[in-house]
């Protein structure tokens, strides 16, 4: 029992770390395409860890399954929205950031 609790807390903390990474990326990345990455990759990984951690704490199987069902939904949704926004940004001619060559 103690092991499960430890694992759950570890997953929660890992989730928090990925959220932090996502926020740092959002604050520091140079253009809209890269910023889309942080939301659809790091944040969703954080959410996945969080949901897994909480599912271990759930009282019932139904609750745990419901928690785990949220993750694929957000994955699909954020992938599609990220693509739709990037697609439109590209059509509008917003340039992608490029590293300056020395």
């Amino acid at each position, binding site marked *: 029992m103690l092991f499960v609790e430890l694992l759950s807390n570890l997953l929660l903390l890992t989730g928090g770390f990925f959220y932090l990474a996502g926020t740092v990326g959002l604050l520091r990345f140079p253009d809209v395409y890269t910023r889309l990455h942080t939301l659809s990759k790091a944040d969703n990984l954080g959410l996945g860890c969080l949901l897994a951690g909480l599912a271990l704490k759930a009282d019932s199987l139904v609750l745990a399954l419901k928690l785990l069902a949220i993750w694929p*939904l957000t994955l*699909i*949704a954020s*992938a*599609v929205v990220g*693509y*739709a926004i990037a*697609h*439109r940004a590209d*059509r509008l001619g917003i340039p992608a950031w490029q590293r300056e060559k020395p």
Partner: protein
Amino acid sequence: MTTALAFEALLALLLLWSAWQTLATPQMDRAVIMFIVFGLLLTLVWSRLQAPDIALAEAALGAGLTGTLLLDALTAFRQPNRSAKHGRVLAAFRRFPALLALLLLAAALLTSLTRLPLPAVDLPAAVAGQLGSSGVSHPVTAVLLNFRGYDTLLEVAVLLLALTGILAVGLPAERPLLSLNQLVPTLARSAVPLMVLAAFYLLWAGAHRPGGAFQAAAVLAAAAVLLNLSQLQSRWLPTQHWIRLVVGAGLLLFVGIAAALLAGGGLLRFPPGQAGLLILLIESGLTVSLAVNLAAFYLLRTSSSGQWAGQEDSHE
């Protein structure tokens, strides 16, 4: 305890900040996005206030319908996005008399808030006491459809009136999508069946836990909007009679049941034995009817060669 307080204080600040941004930002599209953000923050507030029913409705309507309606309306205004006078109008907030009046209003409201006595009637206890005879075990549903059923009846009438008003004002013409990519229809094909499933779940859940006809209808309406955005569902025309039928049917069903019960006593006084069944019947009818009504706010359009198209072009 302090963590909880910090959480609530930050949430409150964010809510006020997003509300201020909605009014103060010069560009209209940005204002609408900030309003969507405001609605989503409000969902978190309702969750914190232990009101999951309201949080469900706010999430479904705010994320699915209100935001889309507002974003869509913006495209009708082919004017420069930034209202030229906004800076000056915003300065009105800083003008002394207006600011003073608003500050006085805020101070008056806040002081009266802290001085209000506790209510004389203990409503939660009254609801809990009558819950057994209501036919459902979730108190909010019991209030909505049994104890204050006429509220809900009139609300359905208001929705119908709003739709009638929109039809009377005239519908804008349909516009083509700015860009379509293949992923959005894929998303719609996988998400819409799940949304319908979620709506059924919410409808069923309403009897004994947070959920019910309104939340289910909001989710269904959002599904219709998503179908339209992925061009799997064309816009509805006001000449399509099934829309009028379905939209009217919810109110008719409700009024019919109310009239049938009138003989037995008061308006919408359900006999305790059949209350559960009647509420389920009303809720199922309402879900479909409300969903079509809500979706029609967004989906009803005249065909692209309609009268409005020409008028809009003349102002470009």
